[in-house]
């Protein structure tokens, strides 16, 4: 779409251009102005667009971020959907519980797991170093990737909510959807920061996969993603409360049982997510490396 518009603009410009003085130059220039010459915002969008293309064409990212959550939603609602649980003092069917739970999972997978695996791979293969060798600022490279992650997460979330509505009749009120969007945005940002922090500690893409699974899987079981928090022991709840997954899931669960914006979002959880984001960002700034590990000599 972007390219189509760009192309149309270019064709229009070509029609407008008068055959002016012929300038002889040894180096043929790219016609039209480059993203970098159009300012930092254009450069950020340029980076985000290509990062989006890269992740959209990655079979692993497609499977993990899109199909896997859908499959889990179908399986969980199919197996346990008829039961009931309590969310924020409201008794709900388990199928209502699973929609925000799996939504939280898909955010973690897209913003954290896919990002860690992608970034570790890009660094290991020297792609990050090569991008860093250009004049593009580090903040654009990271910001572009983050923006691309936000878009991927939003699309994945929209698909999940649509399936929940059409297949299971689990609808969410308008203001609550806005609350979900806010929680999801903060959550995506927090998990992307954590992703950058964790990828700073991982030397290779081979190591990334098990580390991601190990850090993610246990939290899904104790954070109200697969199993309702109401059925967990006090100790497990306390452990889960330290980590960000539970806070993301909790705020999303509020939106499934309430209809006003204020009741559908948990301020405390948002603050905890923001603290995690700030801590992870500081750690990443200190520890993140663009160079492949152990190449110096």
């Amino acid at each position, binding site marked *: 779409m972007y390219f189509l518009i760009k192309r149309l603009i270019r064709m229009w410009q070509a029609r407008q251009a008068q055959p002016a003085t012929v300038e*002889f*130059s*040894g*180096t*043929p*220039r*790219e*016609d039209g102005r*480059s*993203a*970098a*010459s159009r300012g930092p915002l254009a*450069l950020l969008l*340029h*980076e985000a667009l*290509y990062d989006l*293309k*890269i*992740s*959209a*064409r*990655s079979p692993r990212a497609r499977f993990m971020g899109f199909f896997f959550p859908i499959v889990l939603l179908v399986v969980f609602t199919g197996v346990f959907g008829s039961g009931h649980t309590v969310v924020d003092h409201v008794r709900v069917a388990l199928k209502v519980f699973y929609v925000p739970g799996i939504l939280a999972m898909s955010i973690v997978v897209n913003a954290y797991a896919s990002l860690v695996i992608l970034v570790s*791979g*890009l660094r*290991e*293969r*020297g*792609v990050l*170093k*090569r*991008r*860093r*060798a*250009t*004049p*593009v*600022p580090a903040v654009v490279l990271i910001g572009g990737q983050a923006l691309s992650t936000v878009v991927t997460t939003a699309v994945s979330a929209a698909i999940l909510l649509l399936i929940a509505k059409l297949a299971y009749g689990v609808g969410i009120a308008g203001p609550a959807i806005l609350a979900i969007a806010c929680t999801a945005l903060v959550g995506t940002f927090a998990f992307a920061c954590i992703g950058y922090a964790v990828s700073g500690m991982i030397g290779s893409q081979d190591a990334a996969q098990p580390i991601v699974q190990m850090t993610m899987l246990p939290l899904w079981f104790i954070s109200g993603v697969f199993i309702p928090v109401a059925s967990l022991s006090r100790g497990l709840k306390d452990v889960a409360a330290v980590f960000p997954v539970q806070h993301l899931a909790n705020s999303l669960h509020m939106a499934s049982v309430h209809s006003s914006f204020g009741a559908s979002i948990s301020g405390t959880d948002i603050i905890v997510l923001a603290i995690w984001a700030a801590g992870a960002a500081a750690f990443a700034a200190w520890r993140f490396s*663009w*160079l*492949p590990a152990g*190449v*110096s*000599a």
Partner: protein
Amino acid sequence: MFTNSLDAAVAAAGQSAPGAGEAVIRVRGLQKRYGDHEAVRGIDLEVRRGEIFAFLGPNGAGKTTTVEILEGFRQASGGSVEVLGRDPWQAPGSWRARLGIVLQESGAEPGLNVRECVALYAGYYPAPRNIDETIALVGLAEQSGERATSLSGGQRRRLDVALALIGDPELIFLDEPTTGFDPSARRAAWEVVAGLRDLGKTIFLTTHYMEEAERLADRIAVIAAGQIVAEGTPQTLGGRQLEAAQISFRLPASTATRELPPELDERLQTDPDGDLRLPSTLVTADLHVLTGWALERGIELDDLEVSRPTLEDVYLQLTSEE
């Protein structure tokens, strides 16, 4: 295939590079320590505009460290470094826009085709070259729509060169650009590099292949154990031009070496495999005596050859001394 487009680009660029001869890289007393280990121990380098400078050295000699300091990826522990008039460690993005870097190892951008890769990098620079022209320049026009990950090793290296060229840099770092190439791909890559020189670019090349350095470089520096052990042109490196030439040949089994003229016989060395070698400082005169003697007796001198120490001989000698 790409030589034609390269020729055209060279013709368009004209012959004179502005500011030819000024120092583009100036390094004085460069040091780099990792903890107790001193990787680079006070080296001096100067690379002038428009030349191809080859930087040679065995693995672990401090070569990659030096290159990464010049590229601004690592901070020097001591000494002064100036690349395009700036300290690379503190240089801004506008400095990077004048630089092209072909890294020793860099994977393809996943998921993107050749043209998209080049377009992504074109967006990073304030005044990039034309995308399709640059792809044609490195001979990838036919692969333009192919995924970068599906290219052959040689093609991927050409894509690396295209990505380094797209910003229209003045100075290009080529870190072992042909490692792992088959001979024909290597020759093709050399033509690209020679073409870059003709475009007026300054090239800082590291390589393991002496033939590559000899073919391409205007000047060579050899680093071993963190110090520069020799610097010169491919012809003069390590006093190569002063070394004696070798005249080598074989005699028929029926002829003994003592039958040779005595002035040759006394200098003659015999290899284990029976080849005869004659160190010679007056090659023409010695050859005249030798071939005159052979013609007189009706003897055919098999495998007659005159050789000087190769760059590789000089290099191995230089780097083994440390």
